């Protein structure tokens, strides 16, 4: 079975820039593996995540995501791959303020038929799939009809996690999802996220600058060791 993410001799330069922003000799995340990628801002981690998500174009070397070489795909195909197989959690502002908790959670199923079919196959209906995830992530079902603006940050991040996980994606990319949470909520959130990912056998690439989180993960990778490019040091 292929890895969820696999990069070999990958390098990326911003247009007009002489030196590469990102240079990775070799990095892989196995299926169902949960990896903590630690890096300060400016270490090239945003570039790395955008490349993996298929939003940035024009890398050199090999970058395979879920068995696809992204360089060989057209933008529309990468959008489709992301819609069907990848969940993404931001640091904050993960939710559309004009949709309810339930509508936010099921958003991915509205955008992708594959996700909807998988959610239905697993739980019977999209709503049931959403409720199952809410249960697992510690969100009360009574929140489902509430506007997301009525939720605390911690609850919002759980909704974001549920939205990323619905419809059986193969890879979750979490970009500093806990930096807006306080210590107590942070620990609980990570434990629940990791448990849910483990249950569902989803690979997780978790990025944070906070070294205190490494204890929860199978494997920790330091961005400074991964990125051979020196240009970020100059930032």
């Amino acid at each position, binding site marked *: 079975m292929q890895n969820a993410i696999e990069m070999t001799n990958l390098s990326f330069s911003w247009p007009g820039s002489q030196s590469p922003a990102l240079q990775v000799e070799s990095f892989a995340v196995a299926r169902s593996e949960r990896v903590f990628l630690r890096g300060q801002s400016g270490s090239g981690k945003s570039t790395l*995540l955008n490349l993996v998500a298929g939003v940035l174009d024009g890398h050199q070397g090999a970058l395979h995501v879920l068995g696809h070489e992204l360089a060989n795909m057209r933008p529309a195909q990468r959008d489709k791959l992301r819609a069907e197989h990848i969940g993404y959690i931001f640091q904050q502002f993960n939710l559309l303020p004009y949709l309810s908790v339930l509508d936010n959670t099921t958003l991915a199923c509205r955008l992708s038929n594959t996700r909807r079919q998988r959610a239905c196959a697993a739980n019977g209906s999209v709503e049931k799939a959403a409720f199952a995830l809410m249960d697992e992530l510690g969100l009360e079902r009574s929140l489902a009809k509430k506007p997301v603006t009525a939720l605390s940050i911690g609850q919002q991040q759980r909704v974001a996690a549920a939205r990323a996980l619905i419809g059986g994606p193969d890879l979750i990319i979490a970009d500093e999802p806990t930096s807006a949470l306080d210590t107590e909520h942070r620990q609980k959130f990570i434990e629940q996220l990791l448990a849910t990912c483990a249950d569902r056998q989803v690979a997780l690439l978790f990025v944070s600058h906070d070294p205190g989180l490494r204890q929860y993960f199978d494997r920790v990778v330091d961005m400074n060791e991964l990125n051979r490019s020196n240009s970020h040091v100059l930032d």
Partner: protein
Amino acid sequence: MFWIELAFKSLLNRRLTVMLTALSIAFSVALFLSVEKIRTDTKDNFSRTLTGTDLVVGARSGSLNLLLYSVFRIGDASNNMSWESYQELSADPAVAWSVPISLGDSHKGYRVIGTTKAYFDHYQYGREQNLAFKEGQSFDQLFDVVIGSEVARALGYPLNQQLSLVHGTGAVSFSKHDDLPFKVVGILAATGTPVDRSLHVSLQAIEAIHLGWKDGVRLQGAEGFSPEKNQKLQTETITAALIGMTSRLKTFNFQRKVNDYTDEPLSAIIPGATLQELWSMLRVLESTLLSISALVMVSGLLGLLTVVLAGLNERRREMALLRALGAPAKHVFSLLCGEAGLIALVGVVVGVCLHYGLMVALAPALLDRFGVLLNISMLAPYLFLWLGLYVLLAAFLGALPALRVYRQTLNDGLSQRI
């Protein structure tokens, strides 16, 4: 379907700003349409001050001068034409009808016209509309007067009101004809022409009040008019005449005949052509109104741009989120463009409704106060073109910030720099 639903919910979420933007566009569109309407209708009204009359004949002078005093009652005639010439010319077989006009007196600043009853049958304005009586009827007795709508409104004259005329055209005059009072027997309906600001009496009445006068002053010891004595009231001169031809084709021949008249120097003008000439002199007014319209439209667009720009930070997060969920970039882009276009479209539709409401509400007051007759009708085709272009321009302006966000999203990728 999902995208439309999402766009709709997103708009609903920002309904206050969206509604205010659409409203500001609606106001600018309504204002533009109304200014444009008043401009075209004023022009239209103006060039249709006198229709149905083929020629205006008066003493020899420039055509604008003749038009100004005979139709607009501005300024004075330099010379009169004789009654004999008028009789001879109107006897021409090409002439279908003729109406004599005698000017020179006034009442509280409003001009008095001595004429015949035929005036009320043949004077036409606008789309060949005849004068109509709002109250009463034409003059019958020697000292009857028919007043225009503005005279009646401004001076508050009802039927049977007694009034006296003064010699000359000033609002204040020392040569009064106050010994011979007139009685209001008719009030004309509003026309939006100088008729509204006129008083109409018979030619005989003009003669009567000037009996015993010479060159604008009462002669010492001369006998004035008194009803008991059966004085002869014979018109000797008139100021101008309105002429209708039996056929339009004969107009130019007759005009030449008048201009070449040997017994006395006369001029004949075609009112429509001279009115156009006069309007072209008022082009400053027209271009002022046009530039107001243009500025109003521009301010509406700027309002739209401001709101789109102000809401951009929020939209950046929304776009990054939708991109992360796998939405193609062009979908997200068209969402923003379509939104600007939709706001503009709603604004334009509401603006058109507002415009019609405004026109219906204002039409009576405009006619009454300013003599502008609004012709409420379908929007002119060129306005449809303008409004269409306006919506496109608005969509394009909305697209400019959208394009910026789009580029940023492509560059930032999914990470949001706040």
